[in-house]
């Protein structure tokens, strides 16, 4: 293998690694973020998504008894809320 071929192969390997890393990061970050919005279907507005997250939190509270259960509901709600926030996903995109 010539020196030029070796460098080209090295660059390609690095590029492939970076693409794979970017794809895996995108998967890790966007999957939980988009899940809630995706459940609501295409065209769901942020407010609709947020209202739905509120309702889910309310349902969580119905089954919650005590402090820690309610903390868990609040955490789930916050994660849901991030899932509704398309701006956050956009903000994260340049990082990939």
């Amino acid at each position, binding site marked *: 293998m010539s020196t030029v071929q070796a460098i080209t192969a090295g660059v390609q390997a690095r590029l492939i690694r970076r693409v794979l890393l970017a794809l895996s990061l995108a998967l890790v970050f966007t999957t939980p973020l988009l899940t809630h919005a995706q459940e609501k279907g295409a065209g769901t507005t942020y407010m609709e998504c947020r*209202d739905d997250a509120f309702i889910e939190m309310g349902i969580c509270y119905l089954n919650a008894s005590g402090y820690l259960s309610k903390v868990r509901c609040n*955490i789930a709600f916050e994660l849901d809320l991030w899932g509704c926030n398309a701006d956050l996903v956009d903000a994260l995109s340049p990082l990939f």
Partner: protein
Amino acid sequence: MKTRTTRSLPRRYVAAGLLLLAAGFASAGALIKREPRGLIEYTPPAGIARLRADTIRLPATASLLDFAGDSNDLYFVDGMARNLVHVRRQAAGWELHGVHSKRGEGPGELRVPFSVALWSDTIVAVSDLDELELFDRNGDHIMTARPNLPCGAGQVHLATSNRVLFGSANCIHGDTMAATLFRYIDTRSASRIVDEPRNSVSGRWGSMVAALRSIGDDARGVTFGTGRQPCVTRLGSNSTQPARECWPLPAYRADVPPGFTKGAGRYAWPDTLPYYIDRIGSASGRVFLLRPFSADSGVIVAADESGGRPLMVVSLSAMIGCRALGCAWTAEQANTTFIQLVPLARLDSLAAKR
């Protein structure tokens, strides 16, 4: 001369070093003095009062999220049925008086009722997503209000004082999630009063394990705080100037309960438990704090300069919270809901004795 100079320089450094060392010991001494107020595992003192409460019996199961009322009537938000459970004081004690509203999207119906407060002697306000549902004391619907709230807050907790309605919710400013206290000007608008940081959005500081509601009742106005610091902000009902009160409370730690991980991040179990998860101010001027010391237990203390006098050990399971009339817990048994209410007057009485 050169020799003397080279010998004298190290002496100067040694002198400077001794001074710095002395300063270092002095500061270390200060740190050691602060250690007794550091992180501790709390054990309630022997002989502390256990929960002694008035019992209210409801002939049905209910998921009670919040309550408000006065010496004659109590209104509980039932998150399960999405209605208001109305309890009235009778000669024999508190008894179920009626159930108001129902689940639905129509006028006066409730979607996700979250909090309740008496706005005046005649109006019961219920926060429902971004709306306020207003009822009269008999539960008849008056109107639905959609006030313009700070940062579009939707999970609103309510408190009232002297016919002034206050709310609190979480707002995001950059990387900071802050609790916001606001006053309802009318049914259309509210004005922000003060913010208190809760945690960072990126998870660098703070924890979601904190006070569930940032606003609390106070006979002299409202109290506000997240429990991250041993402080509350008090605001008189007619005042625009909030005053912050802090106490030298020890910080508690507790083992990580199942379902939580230990470490940094706002979803993790914090190294330091919140200083309180609920609070209430009495007419005597005392502030009572509900302090967690383990995953499922807490102690009600009267906040003071001695670090807080412990009054009562309580369970955090099935806790509804502390409001103007006192602190309440709920229990289910054979399709019956039992509400345990520890009146604020009883806490005041306990605090006066100690």
